[in-house]
């Protein structure tokens, strides 16, 4: 019980929780929408060799080692004016940003890399879901005069609901489990700007040898993830039932 009381009193746990929450709030919607849009374009507009190439290229970050990823992104995000990304934004007249050396840019950078890493995986899942949608539905929609946008919102999106639920749930769980990216890229810094719950658990267990405390934080993490997953299930089910009643 003492460990749980210590967790509640620890100010650093609160900041880790807030950072993890911000990471999830930014990453999950962006990667879900982005992967869905890319999958739609590839499934409906680019069913050719170029589409295959793009699909493979987008999957490369998924299978790339995180240590390597962090090393490369550290170079790209160098804070001096000669850094790759700073050079690019400099072309548009923008001031160089100290990406990994300031609080908000560091958290933003971690989110950006997280999205870059996950989009390919979720795109493949969406793509597989879209390939299962019968072409006849799109043909019927075309006959009824529906344009591309209308077809996406009235045919694709409703039929992808189970896939979307899976992607959102997996994305949320992964976001709360984010560890290797911050461990290798920032170590939770600068300050505590990118400290996440799992990194706190790791440090408590393997750097500070407080196994009981680390277990207590892990249980808190489990409770949060379970609660969010339950909430997502309820929201998706309610919408589904609402539609059935309407029909």
């Amino acid at each position, binding site marked *: 019980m003492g460990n749980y009381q210590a967790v509640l009193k620890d100010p650093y746990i609160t900041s880790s929780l807030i950072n993890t929450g911000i990471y999830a709030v930014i990453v999950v919607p962006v990667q879900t929408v982005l992967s869905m849009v890319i999958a739609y374009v590839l499934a409906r507009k680019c069913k050719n060799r170029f589409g295959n190439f793009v699909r493979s290229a987008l999957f490369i970050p998924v299978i790339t080692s995180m240590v390597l990823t962090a090393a490369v992104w*550290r170079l790209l*995000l160098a*804070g001096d004016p000669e850094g790759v990304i700073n050079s690019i934004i400099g072309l548009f007249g923008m001031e160089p940003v100290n990406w990994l*050396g300031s*609080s908000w840019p560091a958290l933003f950078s971690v989110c950006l890399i997280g999205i870059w890493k996950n989009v390919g995986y979720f795109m493949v899942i969406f793509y597989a879901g879209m390939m299962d949608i019968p072409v006849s539905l799109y043909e019927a929609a075309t006959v009824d005069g529906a344009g591309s946008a209308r077809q996406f919102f009235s045919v694709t999106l409703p039929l992808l609901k189970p896939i979307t639920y899976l992607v959102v749930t997996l994305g949320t769980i992964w976001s709360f489990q984010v560890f290797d990216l911050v461990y290798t890229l*920032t170590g939770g810094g*600068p*300050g505590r700007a990118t400290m996440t719950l799992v990194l706190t658990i790791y440090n408590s267990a393997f750097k500070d040898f407080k196994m009981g405390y680390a277990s207590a934080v892990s249980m808190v993490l489990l409770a949060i993830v379970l609660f969010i997953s339950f909430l997502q299930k309820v929201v998706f089910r309610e919408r589904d039932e609402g539609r059935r009643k309407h029909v």
Partner: protein
Amino acid sequence: MKKVMKKMVSALLCIVMLGGMLAGCGKSDSEKSSEGEKTEGASLDVWLPPLSENQDDKDVWDKIIDPFEKENNCTVNVEIVPWGNYEEKYLTGITSGEGPDVGYMYMEMISDFIDMGAVEPLDDYLTDEDKDNFLYLSNGVIEGKQYCLPIIVGNVIVMCYNKDILAKNGVTEVPDNCTWDEFIEICKKIKVGADGSTEVYPLVQRWGNPSISTLNSSFYPYVWQGGGSLFNEEGTALIIDSDAGKDAVQFLYDLRFTHQILPDVVTSLTADDCISYFCEGKTAFVEMESSSTVQFDDAGINWGFITSLTKEKKGTFVASDSLVLMSNAENKELAYKLMQFMLSGTSMTEYHKSAQFAPIGKDEEYHDNPAFEKVYAEDGAELHSLSPAKGSYKIYDSLYKNLQLMMMGEKQPDEVISESVSYADTILNE
């Protein structure tokens, strides 16, 4: 036809995989021969980190230890543990009963393992010869007991400077006892690079490092230079709220904000970045481990160094890592004998051919980089290593994060000190 081909290829792949799996189950020739010779003798496990310049630590140690194995009819298994998960490997190994007989630990980690009862005191094993020979035995005394025998004392952090940049900016020399004020005045003169045109930073530090090792180069030395220490003598309180501690924090704050000697970008720089900046002639000064300065020579930089800046006195960080005898070692006498053998002048002379460090005993000559011999000879008393303290990782981590926030302009020096000290009190009183 296609189907038959597919089946044949699949079958072939299966056979290749099966062969690979079976080969993996077999033993290598060296294992077979060593088992044949030494199954009757004892077996000792030693875990060491990679330190050799050619990444061939295992080969080097196997060669060094070979005579010991023959003399004592035993097998010594040397395992090189990567730095990445070093403490994690020890913790999981020891708690699962699969740990080594002889370990290698650094000061930040040793207290917690002593607290766990995993490390054996060596007072009963130490001989008079050992006491006479080893130079840094006192570094291994913790809570009044000799828990470790220093194996690596070196890799001192020095203040390096680019002579060409200084000359171009009208600085003819950096005094050996350069005070903080003199250093600030020199830094203020640095405006252009060695070619006279490029912009250059006076000093860079590694505040973007993911690990707390930045404190070794950019904070602790300034506390020691002010005549202070990090913990009290009992190791029960963090005392950076002393005058020396306050001055050190204020000095860093002034370098960054009052005099703007440290640029904004320091909050994102790692140790490697600092090396690159110095090698590319983008900074006049850098605090650097002696082992890394070989890269300055490779880059053709005309560089020099002073041991440290001076306030009340000089003071800088020197690594002090030790061999420890683990409590779960079955044959402690033999394990200690191995430690003696590994630390003997003959073994260390051989080892220091591939990993350059200063000698740790009187029975070895100096084999480290000759450029740093005078540091150990003349400034030996000003070289400090960390004093072990319970829960020190969390305390240092909190201090590091608070200092990072100060360097980003999000905390004032007094906030850094009060928050770090109060957090340390919480940890030390648990």
